[in-house]
């Protein structure tokens, strides 16, 4: 069931990313798939983060024009590392989560570009302004999204409880 939710979230993120990119001219203000990967890694640990990263990255690769697998491997690494950090350290505060989202976005860009450079495929230039703004956007949206994901079940539970007690 958990896997289905994560797959649904990845599919939703992909569609939303493409829809937003249509109106923003493809500008990369957010990487919503990465946000889902980091959220699932923080909530469920390194294995789930790694598998979500692998699945999300491969689908994203196949919808883009890069090599299929580079994005999958990059997001797997990010998911695994973030999941491990989430298990080893206390990352429940908004600030620490924001830092983690920010750092994972930067790491994702560096690893992704690094793979392309290692493979000698093409020069992979990127502007630091764009990378930093994307990391900042990911951090803000990621913290809010993770909070909503954690709070929603509690709100639903309380409503169900109140309904049960009413009758």
């Amino acid at each position, binding site marked *: 069931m958990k896997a289905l939710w994560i797959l649904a979230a990845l599919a939703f993120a*992909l*569609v939303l*990313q*493409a*829809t*937003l*990119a*249509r*109106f*923003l*001219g*493809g*500008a*990369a203000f*957010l*990487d919503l*798939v990465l946000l889902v990967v980091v959220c699932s890694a923080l909530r469920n*640990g*390194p*294995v789930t983060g*790694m*598998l979500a990263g*692998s699945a999300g990255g*491969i*689908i*994203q*690769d*196949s*919808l*883009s*024009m*890069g*090599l*299929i*697998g*580079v*994005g*999958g*491997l990059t997001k*797997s*690494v990010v998911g*695994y590392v973030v999941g*491990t950090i989430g298990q080893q350290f206390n990352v429940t505060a908004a600030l620490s989560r924001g830092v983690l989202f920010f750092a994972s976005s930067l790491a994702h860009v560096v690893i*992704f570009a690094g*793979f392309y450079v290692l*493979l000698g495929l*093409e020069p*992979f*230039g*990127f*502007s630091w302004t*764009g990378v930093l703004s*994307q990391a900042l956007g990911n951090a803000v949206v990621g913290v809010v999204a993770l909070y909503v994901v954690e709070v929603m079940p509690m709100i639903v539970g309380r409503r169900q409880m109140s309904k049960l007690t009413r009758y």
Partner: protein
Amino acid sequence: MSLLGVFRRPRYLFAAIAAGHIILISAQINSNFSGSFFGTVTFGAFAEAQRGISAVVDSATGWWRNYLALQTAFDDNMRLRQELSRTKIALQQEHSIAQQSRTFAELLGLRAQLHLATVAASVIAGSASADFRILTVDKGTTDGLGSDMAVIVPDGVVGRVIMPGIRAARVQLLVDRSAAVGAMVERTRVQGIAEGTGSNMLLSYVTAGADVVAGDVVVTSGNDGIYPKGFVIGQIESVERDAGSFGDIALRPAVDFSSVEAVLVVTTPFRSWDSEPVAGPEMQALE
């Protein structure tokens, strides 16, 4: 240790997944795996989902424009914009011909290069990945689209078709990191290659000492075998000279990619641009 036990340990599982990805990447390095069955199926499914979502989004925005904004003003505006689009395209072609006529016509006796056959398409999705700049349009191979067909709008060149599906096609934007187009400075006819940087463009491989200044309009040279000659790519933003040779020549694209809703895909085979005009030309209207 059993196989199941191995895969329950995160480190082993991580190593297995990494190895799987590396094998997958290696398989593509020496083959044309990117156009594989998996990629085609994923793109087809995604395009259909995106077509539905695009229809919903367009309906919502259309409802807003038509019923909450001024209905007649919007209709008039749309009609005038379509007329302007047609006029702009015709003007670009005429401008291109006129410019070429002034410089080469007497020497080379070039024939008219008009009458490009085009197919109108609507944009239904942007890029699913933040690392690449692509668009998805709602026309595919059934509408006559094929790989490496140029995609244009009245303002200039948008990009090229990189993956035509049955009912949709993926278009690489000019600003994508791996995009390149044969370019020419319109004023001086200096040639180079316009390359995407992810967010903007650079004009590269320009001869040292060539006459290029900020503000020059850059058009397609037609040398790449993809883009028709004379269509606007952008304008030179800045020229940084580096000890006699050219350093970075920054190029601002003519097209605002965030506002592209409808495009024209040039279906005329490349060879026909430099030879005979296409028989029975048909320029489909943007509507």
